[in-house]
């Protein structure tokens, strides 16, 4: 009851605050000095926030395999409120999933205030109680984060302290339990991390061309062993060490992570330790950027609940070391890290041909080429369940994924811009989506993206895309046309056509029309059409988003 009371009070404050702000601006637009008497009113702090609402009306469509939705309308929404006053801060988030949109974890069903916090921040010291997000190093052993649009929120609920004893040394530690939808997971998580920025510590080195950073973190989770048969470790520890060095234009960084044996649903309850190694190198000078990376992961899934699956209660964050594609057809077959074991390499080069050069033309031309390859580990099964398997260190096993792509973008005239992408993909659907029997998908994809400025604020943009493949659902063609009137309106129509499907009745046009209104931070968009079945992969896990047919509405705002 008390909880609700506080929430309602908080909400009403914010709503009235927004109204007041609007009326203040409207009533006295040209009298800033009357509107703004900072010396006469005491400062009671500030409230800000943001809001998002997504709803969809679902129609039955057996042809595209859109499941029947008994509720007909599903929606996700949230409102964040943050309060700050000098060194004090507090906030909360109201979330509502009535019921969650298709493709989101059904555990979200319901509404409430699963996120609330307060804290105090001084120059060298900060304390937070309640919900918080945190990450150690690159997140290999620990990352608590949110991706609202992907239905991920594994925040911690507990107590966190950050401390900076001297400039350049950063310490943090916490004890907490992890959020699981509208409740908390069964485990208790403890963690500590230290980061040294050498050039900040020694003022002599402040402007040195050579820069060093290093650090390390430790995580321990406790979960009681209630298993009638197995003796499971109740406390599982993991640590990660990292180091980085930069000399002028060249950077080199690496991270090593180790986890003691952690039998879990992910590794089929073997008592094997986990390891992860990653190395990144980069070169950056104006007009040219190169990055290369290598990564090895072995039994590194880490959650605060050993029985959890999907995207639930993850501690380790193991993103795919591959390019993140966002065009419709290139994002058709996304890769997801295999936490139980993989070996991967990636390289990317971006080069801009200067304005006035032969290739650069009048406005310059940019080329990005990217290559990524991921294999399974070369493993041998061992009968002893304590070990599970052995894996060779640098010997690639089965190919999981390969992506070769090149993107050229060019401004041709002051009004005309064009981009072209080619991509060749090898996708082990059995492994990545965990659906044995499909085999390997080989795909060749072309995308042409052209935009033309008709008038100062009116632009028309088109995308033409094609994916050639003999496997899976066969070839696809896609097109998009978008018309924008800055800064307030947009309208778009897109079509994805599965013309290569071997079943002729499945050679379907997935047509969607969308329109939207924008004003400062307010965005209202509506759409209607058929959406194909898709895959969303995040942090090493893929989720299926079923096909749908119907209306969508989306509202976002921040203040």
């Amino acid at each position: 009851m008390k909880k609700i009371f506080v929430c309602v009070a908080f909400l009403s404050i914010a709503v009235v605050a927004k109204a007041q702000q609007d009326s203040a601006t409207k009533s006295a637009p040209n009298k800033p000095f009357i509107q703004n008497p900072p010396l006469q009113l005491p400062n009671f702090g500030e409230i800000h926030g943001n809001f998002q609402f997504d709803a969809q009306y679902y129609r039955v469509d057996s042809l595209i395999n859109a499941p029947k939705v008994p509720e007909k309308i599903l929606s996700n929404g949230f409102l964040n409120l943050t309060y700050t006053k000098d060194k004090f801060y507090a906030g909360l988030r109201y979330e509502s999933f009535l019921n969650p949109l298709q493709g989101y974890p059904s555990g979200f069903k319901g509404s409430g205030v699963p996120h609330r916090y307060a804290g105090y921040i001084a120059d060298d010291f900060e304390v937070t109680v309640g919900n918080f997000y945190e990450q150690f190093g690159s997140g290999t052993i620990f990352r608590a984060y949110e991706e609202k649009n992907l239905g991920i929120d594994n925040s911690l609920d507990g107590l966190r302290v950050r401390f900076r004893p001297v400039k350049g040394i950063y310490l943090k530690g916490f004890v907490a339990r992890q959020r699981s939808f509208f409740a908390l997971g069964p485990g208790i998580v403890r963690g500590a991390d230290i980061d040294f920025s050498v050039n900040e510590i020694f003022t002599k080195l402040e402007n040195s061309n050579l820069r060093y950073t290093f650090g390390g973190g430790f995580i321990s989770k406790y979960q009681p062993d209630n298993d009638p048969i197995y003796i499971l470790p109740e406390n599982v520890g993991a640590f990660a060490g990292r180091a980085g060095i930069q000399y002028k234009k060249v950077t080199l960084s690496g991270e090593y992570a180790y986890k003691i044996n952690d039998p879990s649903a992910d590794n089929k309850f073997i008592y094997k330790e986990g390891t992860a190694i990653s190395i990144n190198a980069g070169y950056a000078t104006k007009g040219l950027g190169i990055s290369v990376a290598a990564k090895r992961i072995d039994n590194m899934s880490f959650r605060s609940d050993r029985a959890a699956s999907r995207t639930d209660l993850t501690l380790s964050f193991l993103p795919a070391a591959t390019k993140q594609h966002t065009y419709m057809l290139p994002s058709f077959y996304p890769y997801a890290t295999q936490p139980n074991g993989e070996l991967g390499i990636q390289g990317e080069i971006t080069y801009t041909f200067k304005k006035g050069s032969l290739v650069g033309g009048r406005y310059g031309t940019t080329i990005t080429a990217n290559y990524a390859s991921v294999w399974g580990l070369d493993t041998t099964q061992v009968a002893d369940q304590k070990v599970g398997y052995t894996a060779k260190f640098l010997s690639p096993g089965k190919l999981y994924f390969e992506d070769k792509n090149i993107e050229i973008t060019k401004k041709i005239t002051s009004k005309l811009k064009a981009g072209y992408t080619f991509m060749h993909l090898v996708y082990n659907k059995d492994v990545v989506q965990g659906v044995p029997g499909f085999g390997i998908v080989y795909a060749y994809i072309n995308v042409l993206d052209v935009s033309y400025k008709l008038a100062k604020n009116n632009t028309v943009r088109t995308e033409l895309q094609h994916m050639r493949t003999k496997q899976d659902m066969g070839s696809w063609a896609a097109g998009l046309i978008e018309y924008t009137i800055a800064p307030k309106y947009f309208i778009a129509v897109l079509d994805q056509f599965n013309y290569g499907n071997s079943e002729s009745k499945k050679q379907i046009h997935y047509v969607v029309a969308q329109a939207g209104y924008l004003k400062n931070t307010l965005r209202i968009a509506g759409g209607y059409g058929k959406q194909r079945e898709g895959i969303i992969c995040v942090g090493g896990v893929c989720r299926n988003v079923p096909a749908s047919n119907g209306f969508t509405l989306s509202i976002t705002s921040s203040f």
Partner: protein
Amino acid sequence: MNRYKTLLALSLSLLLGNANAQINRPVPAIDLKNTAGITVNTAAITNNGKPIIIDFWATWCKPCVLELNTINDVYADWQKETGVKIIAVSTDDARNLAKVAPFVAGKAWEFDILLDPNGDFKRAMNVNNIPHTFLLNGNGEIVWQHASYEPGDEDHLYELVKKVAKGEKIEE
């Protein structure tokens, strides 16, 4: 009943404070690293009394890259005329973080880059989706913000930058 009265009084006082502060909204204090690995506190961002643009983006975000490409072409002129500084805050997570500096260099962008890999600054600024642009006046206070990008938005942004550079108020 007294409890409600106290709450009402508290709400009102918060409101007055808020309405007052709304006009001079400061940037929240978050420690971020730049691409050289140096820690920068976002509350301490300054530009010698000239306007500042804070733009949230990511390497994988097409509209963000389009916006920053477009502005990069005219950035030298903007700087010459108004002294504006652009801080492009990359929200790329560990997947793409190591690629940010080479990406920015390869595009020949001239912006200051800050890294926000776990979204701490993004959350503190109440950003829903990217791109999201904030305009700060010479005192480092937020005077305007805008979500999403459509070609032509940069012209409007620059009109506002010029106003702020002259010390005029933004009324929208």
